[in-house]
């Protein structure tokens, strides 16, 4: 193959179907590399004292969401292409429900602990068994 064809193969978006063994494998290798990098950074952020303590948990959540994005694009091939419209819409709805359930539960339960009139420590005792 000549140089120009080679460029065309690499020009395909990560999740798009390819015909070339090389570019298809390359997409997975790039995905693996990014995922390893994000995982490594997560473990490093969790054990270093360089970063401001209270910000570490937020940073870890951001890194996790980024890694999920990498998995979706490079491994599950979720793209913005027309073939993927239904998949993306279903994903968007799934993400909405996941966030509603998680944030809603954590928010309500934390406030219930804090606002039920009983000493929060005592209230939490009720939940310990």
């Amino acid at each position, binding site marked *: 193959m000549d140089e120009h064809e080679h460029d065309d193969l690499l020009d395909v978006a990560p999740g798009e179907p390819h015909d070339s063994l090389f570019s298809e494998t390359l997409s997975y290798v790039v995905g693996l590399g990014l995922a390893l990098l994000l995982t490594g950074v997560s*473990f490093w952020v969790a054990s270093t004292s360089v970063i401001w303590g209270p910000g570490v948990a937020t940073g870890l*959540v951001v890194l996790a969401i980024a890694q999920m994005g990498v998995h979706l694009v490079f*491994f*599950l091939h979720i793209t913005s292409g027309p073939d993927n419209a239904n998949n993306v819409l279903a994903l968007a709805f799934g993400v909405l429900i996941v966030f509603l359930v998680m944030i809603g539960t954590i928010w309500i339960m934390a406030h219930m602990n804090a606002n039920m009139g009983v000493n929060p420590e005592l209230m939490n005792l009720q939940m310990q*068994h």
Partner: protein
Amino acid sequence: MTTSAEAPAVGLTHGGSEDTGLGHRGPESKSIVVPYGFWLFVLSDMVLFSALFATYATLVHATDGGPTTKDLFDRNLVAIETLALLVSSFVCGLAIIAAKRRNMLWTQVWLLVTGLLGFVFLSIELYEFATMIGEGAGPQRSAFLSGFFTLVGSHGAHVTAGLLWIGTMMAQVWAKGFQPHIMRRLMCLSIFWHALDIIWVAIFTIVYLIGTL
């Protein structure tokens, strides 16, 4: 696909760039519809896990005077588990690439490696569970530990199901070859396996890393 342009069928369509979404080309092919249906199942599975995550986050401090997250979790073990599952997910992709090219040897080899790495992950998880239960930190000990075993155990149960599925697919590919319906099952398996790795990313971050800060 363009030959069916005049068919007046109404159904699930999404495909060519000229598609109006009105179903004028008839239903999409099974190779599109089946993974889409399976994708819906996987997303509903993630909704299930979101409820387990919410339960865990609510109960994580309810330790009843027993062991806390900091006492129990070993980051080195978790790092190995994470690496095994991530590489397993990658190798599963290689198996699909080989299967698309109808290469029996490499499809079987990559599926076997996928399964073995999944088994390494599961063994470490079971070792961790057994150690914790041996130390008296079983699921009955506190609400926190009930939530922990439910969340991480559900993921482990999914991985176990995935391992059985991988074995089944190796046998089916071997016996029946790369027929269209076998290829669709392989696609669904790879979606399932990649989704398990996505859920594990949330678990190692929220349960293990944030739990041991």
